[in-house]
């Protein structure tokens, strides 16, 4: 009886875990017993696990990850430093909004990743080129989300602060910042996704180290298990970061989780 109760209570979890286990098992069994594996074109979970173990123990994977995250952090930090003030000014000053909105919207809507080859060629295959790409891709979510956050600030609250003789500092720290916070976190979540695309594309295009380079090199040399290891690690990082942001969003502003500005 107990097992049944457990099932009805955690139905989602049980079914989800079951479906993942089923898929992995089916993949492994099919390629072991039904079709013989052609190691140049396909691989199976046991081989991936082996490659995973080997790579985790080796130094190259960690080195690649460090290289990629350094470029990511540089680009991302600059996106934060530039994007948040820009969004604040756009939200607070109507004329600035009018002037910048069409231009920035066009930039945000367009696939700026198309500039990747140019950026890599101009800034080189090192940290700078990749960081520039990450910055370019991840700055706009910050701008537009902070912008929307400021816009959504309750005018009544602003008037209250003003009437009670609050200074500009009070206004910013007590009203505008708190009401912008959830938008900012949502923006960060989007920016992480876009920044990761930037890193990957930059490293696919031209690099000598980094996790994206490791994946594309493994592909070029038909080392499929290694390639899957790279893909899985990168996906796990992406999922963890995005999920962390979503959790943060839920704690900061549970009433508007999952909503996005544009």
């Amino acid at each position: 009886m107990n097992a049944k109760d457990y099932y009805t209570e955690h139905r989602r979890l049980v079914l989800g875990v079951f479906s993942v286990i089923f898929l992995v098992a089916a993949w492994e069994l099919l390629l072991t017993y039904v079709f013989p594996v052609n190691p140049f074109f396909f691989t199976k979970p046991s081989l991936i696990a082996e490659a995973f173990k080997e790579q985790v123990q080796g130094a190259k994977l960690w080195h690649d990850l460090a290289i990629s995250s350094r470029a990511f952090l540089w680009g991302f930090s600059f996106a934060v430093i530039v994007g948040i003030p820009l969004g604040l000014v756009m939200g607070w000053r109507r004329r600035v909004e009018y002037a910048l909105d069409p231009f920035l919207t066009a930039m945000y809507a367009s696939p700026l990743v198309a500039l990747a080859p140019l950026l890599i060629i101009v800034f080189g295959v090192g940290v700078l080129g990749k960081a520039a790409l990450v910055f370019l891709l991840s700055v706009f979510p910050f701008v537009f989300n902070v912008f929307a956050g400021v816009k959504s600030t309750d005018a009544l609250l602003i008037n209250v602060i003003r009437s009670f003789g609050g200074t500009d500092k009070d206004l910013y720290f007590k009203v505008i910042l708190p009401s912008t916070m959830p938008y900012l976190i949502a923006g960060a979540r989007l920016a992480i996704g876009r920044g990761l695309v930037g890193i990957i594309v930059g490293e696919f295009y031209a690099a000598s180290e980094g996790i994206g380079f490791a994946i594309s090199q493994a592909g070029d040399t038909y080392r499929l298990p290694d390639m899957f290891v790279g893909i899985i690690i990168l996906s796990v990082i992406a999922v963890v970061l995005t999920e962390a942001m979503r959790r943060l969003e839920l704690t900061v502003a549970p009433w508007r989780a999952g909503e996005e500005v544009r």
Partner: protein
Amino acid sequence: MKLKTFCTEHESFILGTGFIVILLALWESVPLWYTLPKGMALFFTTPSKVAAAFQQLLINGEIEKHFYVSAIAFLAGLGLSIVVGLPLGLLMGRSQTLEALLDPYVTSFNASPRIVWLPLMILWFGIGIWSKIVIVFAGAVFPLLINTYAGVKNVNRVLVNVVRSFGANEWQLMKVVVLPNSLPYIIAGLRLAIGRAILGVVVGEFFGSSQGLGYMIASAATNYKVDVVFVGVAIFMALSVILTLAVKQLESRLASWRPETAKTF
């Protein structure tokens, strides 16, 4: 006086276009007030040179040729993602079992950049249209699926119960209540999917193609033809903006009567 009222009425338009015009003019005038060092001059171009390159590529048919290749990959990938994402989203919204079974994959794929699969796709499908279509599909299918799902989940329970009480079967329920009610969500998903699909075309053509606008950009960059790079980027920009605006128009028309905004992921 008249000029002044005109200015205040169209302030946003004037400031918006004015900023872009000033930016372009500044860019154009850079060589006039600053001589670039030799190394940098190689990477520099001006809007007029980009326009000239655009005209030339248009005349010799280069753009047309590449555009067709990209457009086919875009349409095929997006079409495929609609054909798969829409029904799957509807089913996931209606069946809790299916939702629980597929949720781990949908969530993790949606959160991770699909571009990482590109080398594998190139390995499996070769350089050419198929690897591109698959990567476009992989990018575009999740926003569509998730938004359709969210739309179905958001359907008014009362309406569902009413239609059920009058003896509708699942198919009729779908047609009469579920689909019309989730349409705004689906359109919002489509808008996101278009952006992802264009990204897929660009990156797919950087690496897995010998034709198409993305290939044109990548090969121009390696040959230091910076003006051609900007022609390609400008075309992608224009297409994205036009398509996004078109879908937004559709969205606001459909959503004008509903108070809550569609959830987008």
